[in-house]
């Protein structure tokens, strides 16, 4: 299951980042890495991008980027 499949309101734990280089680096920089728990807050009015809660702060991410984050529901 990837992050972009999740519905607003659901929680998950990051299993693996499948993105190489740039995107992977950026995800890590934003605090999205294996083991961290995420909450999907909402989708934008046009469905894309989505907003997450990570560690008490909020991050927006495009679905096209979220599909590289492998998660399991928690």
């Amino acid at each position, binding site marked *: 299951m990837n992050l972009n499949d999740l519905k607003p309101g659901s929680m998950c734990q990051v299993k693996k980042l499948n993105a*190489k*280089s740039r995107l992977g680096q950026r995800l890590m920089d934003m605090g999205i890495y294996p083991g961290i728990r995420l909450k999907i807050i909402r989708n934008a009015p046009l469905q894309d991008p989505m*907003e997450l809660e990570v560690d*008490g702060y909020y991050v927006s991410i495009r679905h096209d980027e979220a599909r590289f984050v492998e998660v399991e529901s928690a």
Partner: protein
Amino acid sequence: MKKKKAIVALAGQPNCGKSTLFNALTGASQHVANYPGITVEKKTGTYRYNGARVGVVDLPGTYSLTSYPLEERVSRDFLIQEKPSIVVNVADASNLKRNLCFTLQLLEMGARVILDLNMMDVAERRGIEIDCEKLGRRLGIEVVPTVIKNGRGRSELLEAIHRASNSRKRIDHLPVEYKSMEPLLKEIEEGLSGEKALIEHYPARWLAVKLMENDNGARIIIRRSHSNPDELLELALKKRQEFESMHGEVPERHIAYCRIQASEEISRECVMHSAGPAAATLSDRIDRIVCNRFLGPLILVGVIYLLYYLSIVQGYNVTNYTWPFLAKLRELVESIMPAPGFIDEPLMRALALWFMDSINALLNYIPIFLILFSLIALLEDSGYMPRMAFILDRIFQRFGLHGQSTLPMVLGGIYVGGCAVPAVMSCKGIPDERSRLATMLVIPMLNCLAKVPLYVLLINIYFAGHKGLAMFFISTVSILIALPVAKVLTLTVLRGKETAPFIMEIPPYHMPTIKGVLKRAIERVWIFIRKIVTIVAAVAVIIFVLLQFPGLDNGRKAHYDAEKEKAIAAFYKKTLDNPYVGQFCEKELMALILYWDEYKSAKMRANGKEATQALNRKFEKQNPAFFKIVRPGTDRAAKKANRAFKKLVKKRKGLLREIKKERIDNSFLGQIGRIMEPATRWAGFNWRVNVALLSAFAAKESSVATLGVLYQQEEDGETLESRMAKGETDFTPLHALALMLFMVLYPPCIATMIMVKIQSGSVKWMFFSLLYPMVLGVIAATLVFTGGSALGLSGLQAMFAFYGLVLALTVAMGLIKNRSEFK
């Protein structure tokens, strides 16, 4: 020996108050420029402490310090090459873990770091307690808790910087342990140990880690400065592969992960949570409405409407009050210039007035800008901007732009009535080099305020029956052109430019302070005045020369002289025995003309009976003899003199206009307009239109002003509309449509061009932004005019056809998939 000035660099992640600290430290002594050749802004300034001057550099806020995106590379290169004396790492205390990852990277680079734990108030409110002393011990650096926003901790921070820049202490412990990677790193470090000069400048440990990450910047350093670069790079590559095959993970991921773990561990040791994140929920509650599926877009439209309404509409009203001051300034200049003759205007005077008119046209925008910039600062400080990007990213992203392109597009006039200068200025907020350039390049196609007079003029003449429809067409067609053009640009000339993942933080809402908002607004207005107005002034002089020279030849001059003599003789003849005129010599006659003009213009400004009466008294006192002619009352002789004189004044005005027109006809610009005519004929432009368009370069308002001169008045009070209609009898709505479309695509005005240069950091992009719209404009105008003529379309039909075409183009371009960046 002169002591080297201490340089303090401010580094940190976005939204941690870095800019606030920079402002608090440097105050007014700021200098904002770009790093050469790129769109990243460089902010520098100075402050004094204990009598010593300290330089401050505000590095771009980034989440990390790798080789890309651009901003990170800029920060890193500065830190590693320029070696600032002290790096103040500004961190968001409420988000310590993530911020520490950045701190650890700084330490690895061998920088002398002071950690400024900013926004302590937010952390405290969220029940986060940080043991700063322990944190400092753990990291081996000084930690200063602050709330820079209200000055808390500022003096402690200054003292810490002062202390640190005077000490020689170096940090020698390893900030991060890379566990299973350590032995491999050791081997690479050994390959570096022989290079004394190299590791003197770049810490060996940092180089080893970066080589392991396969970092491009580090590879370049090795290539440049290592005695045997191939061997070392080969070794690093081998170690990389070794690690990957051993652990099944790419080294850079492992490195980043170790760094996160280290940060986590440190923050666990030093941070005490007494309660959950409570403050964040208020922002979340607001976002439930602001980012709501239905309400979100509505609120967004409302905000944009308010932005327009307050700045453009209300700001325009304010200019009614400020304009008289500018007019006074012009009058002042006029009064100290040599007086005009009967038909010849002294060059000095003409130049000074042209200059004043050009500058005033821009200065007139200042109230609008002040309101606009205040509102932008308000949006920025409140935290609404990222929400705007969040809502609209989907649309903009399809055209190679970015959610953050929203604000620049709105400012540029997404519907009608923006201004490209602040729009281009605000492009720096877009965190992606390619989208930033694309936005910057298409903004001039939107409908800025100065394009509107020409639209109104043409629509009133040629689309009089469908004014609303034509205005709607022109207002919306610009965005329909701008979007596909942006897409084409990103797919072609901008293809190689760097992009960044969209992932961005959505910071909590924040109450802006009046002081902060006003300060920023004034700062930006000041940048506008300093950078733009000076250059526009210089360009105004050039255009003046092009319009004024070579001037009239002697034959024509003699002709006008004869006309003048004739007019004066006629006046004298009629008033031969008139007691009020008989005694005038020619010099007095000229004085009377000026007196007349002055009285007429003063009377036009005076409103109300009392003001007029006061005016009359003033003029009568000034020169009773003249006044009798200007206001003859019931005296028959005076009335006769008045009539004859009125005729003379009118004749003079006519001559002046004719001379002006002839001068423009003959001018260099007129000649260029004629030379271009064979080519522009296909777009339906004759040379007069060409001249008007050329003169619009300095400022687009000029197009209508120049047309006003070219189509001269026959009777007083005749509108430009009827003059133009009479002057161009073979002009059709198709001509007008082609001209309007050309205006939509008209190259940026000088002020915008300069802004493009400032924001893109390159002259190349400035010229590109100038040339490509011209080409597009000619193509669109030709398509409409020649195509429309060939198909026998009426203006309105051609309008619909063109609209359909660009609409289809926009949809088609939106459907083209962007290349995914993260394969």
